[in-house]
């Protein structure tokens, strides 16, 4: 296998779909392998992009049988210019169904080249891949003309254009001798095409689409679905139980995202508060604390929440470290208005653990 082919294989493998299919309509530069070999329904969206007119007007979308996007793809045919001298690059770029960069595919026989006209090697593609995945790349803030201080003709590894101690230098970030290509491609990945994908996804939004996203088992889709519901309150009542359920997820990133969906405006609903406190029993310790902090951020919670938390504390489902935090939620109204809360606190004010006893006494005295 050539270096280049090996690389292609690697990129394709990251997608995780390996079903082969062929498309009836043929596009001149469309390869028959990799992303293009995946099974699904191909949809063509058209969009005009003045700065990128040579690439063509199509944005392709491959959908699975549930109508969820497998990928979005676009043929890129662009010039990369250095001090007035331009060369064309041609490749396919792919985004996933959430608009995140997914991969690239290089047409056979047209490898990317560097400023010294040598071809990209496999390690260069790997590096480029890393650059394009980095949503917060240093390239983001740089304009084409800013790159002039690290021209491809000078070894960027020797020229440190960006000496800020906290920023990685440009030289460390780019593919050697291909700084302009890296810059152009990064801004292509995170440019108008991505916006267009978001528009397409936004237009597709429906209860069914969201339900499919939540059911997809794909972390990226589920994460996007949570974001969509957050941005479209009209879907809140249909999907918040789903999101609440995700707070219990083993995937901590997803669980945290699900929890952060419950913003103070949403948690103002005391029914939701009570549902959330019940979720705690099935979560890991860290998440229990996160939920507790969430309630603290809310300032005032329903008495049932306080009662439930105190019960969890007395039954040792929550450890001693949570007690001062639970007490932050207790108000005079909770104590005077809820006998059970008053009773539990009264018992805890006699607890053999001096720390718990003192804290409780203090809160009871304060409330008098």
């Amino acid at each position: 296998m050539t270096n280049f082919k090996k690389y292609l294989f690697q990129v394709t493998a990251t997608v995780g779909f390996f079903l082969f299919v062929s498309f009836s309509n043929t596009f001149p530069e469309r390869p028959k392998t990799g992303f293009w070999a995946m099974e699904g329904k191909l949809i063509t969206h058209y969009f005009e992009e003045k700065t990128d007119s040579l690439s063509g007007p199509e944005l392709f979308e491959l959908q699975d049988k549930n109508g969820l996007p497998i990928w979005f793809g676009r043929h890129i045919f662009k010039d990369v210019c250095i001090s007035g001298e331009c060369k064309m690059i041609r490749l396919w770029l792919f985004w996933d169904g959430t608009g995140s960069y997914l991969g690239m595919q290089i047409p056979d026989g047209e490898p990317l080249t560097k400023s010294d006209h040598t071809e990209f090697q496999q390690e260069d593609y790997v590096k480029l891949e890393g650059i394009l995945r980095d949503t917060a790349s240093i390239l983001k803030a740089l304009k084409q003309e800013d790159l002039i201080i690290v021209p491809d003709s000078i070894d960027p590894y020797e020229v440190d254009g960006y000496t800020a101690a906290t920023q990685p230098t440009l030289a460390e970030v780019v593919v050697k001798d291909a700084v302009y290509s890296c810059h152009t491609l990064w801004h292509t990945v995170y440019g108008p095409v991505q916006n267009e994908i978001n528009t397409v996804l936004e237009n597709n939004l429906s209860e069914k689409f969201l339900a499919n996203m939540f059911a997809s088992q794909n972390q990226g889709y589920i994460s996007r679905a949570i974001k969509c519901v957050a941005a479209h309150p009209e879907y809140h009542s249909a999907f918040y139980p789903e999101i609440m359920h995700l707070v219990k997820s083993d995937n901590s990133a997803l669980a945290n995202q699900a929890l952060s969906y419950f913003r103070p405006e949403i948690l103002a609903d005391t029914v939701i508060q009570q549902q959330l406190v019940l979720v705690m029993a099935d979560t890991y310790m860290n998440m229990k604390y996160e939920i507790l902090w969430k309630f603290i951020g809310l300032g005032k919670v329903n008495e049932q929440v306080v009662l439930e938390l105190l019960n969890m504390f007395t039954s040792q489902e929550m450890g001693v470290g949570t007690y001062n935090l639970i007490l932050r939620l207790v108000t005079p109204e909770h104590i005077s208005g809820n006998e059970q809360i008053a009773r539990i606190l009264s018992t805890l004010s006699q607890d053999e653990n001096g720390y718990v006893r003192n804290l409780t006494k203090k809160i009871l005295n304060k409330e008098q």
Partner: protein
Amino acid sequence: MKKLAVLITSLALHFSSFSQSSNPVFLETENFQNKGGWVVDQQFMDLMGSSYLMAHGMGVPVADAETTVEFQSTGEYTVFVRTFNWTSPWFDGEGPGKFQLVVNGKKTKQVLGASGSEWLWQNAGKVNISSTKVKVGLHDLTGFNGRVDAICFTKGNTPPPNDLEALETFRKTHLGISMTPEKAGHFDLVVVGGGIAGTTAAISAARLGLQVALIQDRPVLGGNNSSEVRVHLGGRINVNPFPALGDVVKEIGPTRGGNAQPADYYEDEKKMEMVLAEQNISLFTNYRAFAVETKNSRITEVHARNIENAKELTFSAPLFADCTGDGTIGFLAGADYAMGREGRSEFEEPTAPEIADKMTMGSSVQWYSVEESNPVAFPAFRYGVEFNSSNSEKVTMGEWTWETGMNFDQIYDFERIRDYGLLVVYSNWSFLKNFSPNKNEYTNRRLEWVAYIAGKRESRRLLGDLILKEQDITNYVVYPDASAPTTWTIDLHYPAPKNTEHFPDMEFKSIAVHKKIHPYPIPYRCFYSRNVDNLFMAGRNISVTHVALGTVRVMRTTGMMGEVVGMAALVAKRNNTTPRGVYKNHLDELKKLMNKGVGKYNAENMQKYNEGSTLGPKE
């Protein structure tokens, strides 16, 4: 008779309404009954003689402070106020800390706080006192840290003395404070400084049955980890060779991380209640230790003064622990100490500079802003440090990297260091809000919190029987008295080069240079003084070189040092020996205790944030 005098004095102080026996009438502002929005600042007591009130309004004038005073006679008085212009080191003109005195509801004409380059008595004019009960107030005009130590009404024209010793006598005489302090009691161990190290030392010793006094010069515990400074805990606990060390840190440590976050992150109440739950601890908050008595290279007593009512107490014990961070107790007792960077030849440390110098890591005034729904104004603030588009920091908060005073003395220049921290925060913010091309982005932002208790990283390091150095750690030289493990990188701070370009010798931003280490057990000999026989130390003032301080100073580590010191105090008491005696003859006893730990509540480990990276366990 003596008892009665003490009682009368303490009653007078307790009600904090001064009953002045004769002309002049002298008021300590920190003892005002109603402090309004003014804060008590004790940080520089040792430098300028007293704690003081400060109008820390972050640009918004604070509410008046007020107190009622009994005068013996009516008539015309000249008023002297001890204050100064805190921006004077950087700016020649009028300073921003302006305030007025209010006497019986009437503001005096003089605007104070805007002049003077050091703490001085300033003439605030004359007032007519027509009845003997007088209301005295402080009216802040700017919210920019005007400060007042004391006020003196006199029928003569002479201000009180400014020389510290003479002023001290004057204060005591006119406040009716006894020249001999009251006894707080006799303890097994007196711990001075209630940061994480002092708090764990006290808890550890108390749980092992010792009677402990814990003296802390703020109303809250935790030091840099309190809501007053807001630094999160760093480092690892419960690691080899003594996995039980860290159990107390686990109990008192806040459950979520983050520097310069809202106050409730730091769970002050948890630390406080954990201490109060220990019956063997007598806690003295708001007391600052300022003197010691020694006999034959032992400390016999520590003297501490209340930061509000100036009441003085003495604490006696066979053992003391210096957890002040500044090594103040050791210093007062004549303990050997180091400060600044050792030269390379001293310990052959690869990271040490060729030639020794006085540089230390700096102190931080952390801050943050919040977004409001409406525009919020901030006054133009220009007092000698100019900010513009190219040198300003376009940020909405400042945490550890806002670090200053590396080339100043972290003890003797500390007020100036803290003030420079305030100055740059305000000046930069003023630029962003009023003059920056991007000022629109800041229209609705409001300064929510700026620390006035500066976070310190380094000052005196008291020297023990062993001075831990870089190679001990990097070459993993484990000593027989290996104890609390240090796990953080060797993390040394320097002025940020970009900041130096813009503000040469006046930097306020830093960078950290890290060197990874394997978790390394610090020798117990670093935890007691080599020449003050009954003095332990825990915290950043232990016996290490500047380079080694780079790793040991983080607070989960200093907390474990405290646990070990508490245990060693028990061993010393049980065997009637010194801290050194514990090392020489009873190390096995100490090891047994370190194996067992002093955890009490089986708390869950919520200390997984900011653990830092290590090279992993050393085989």
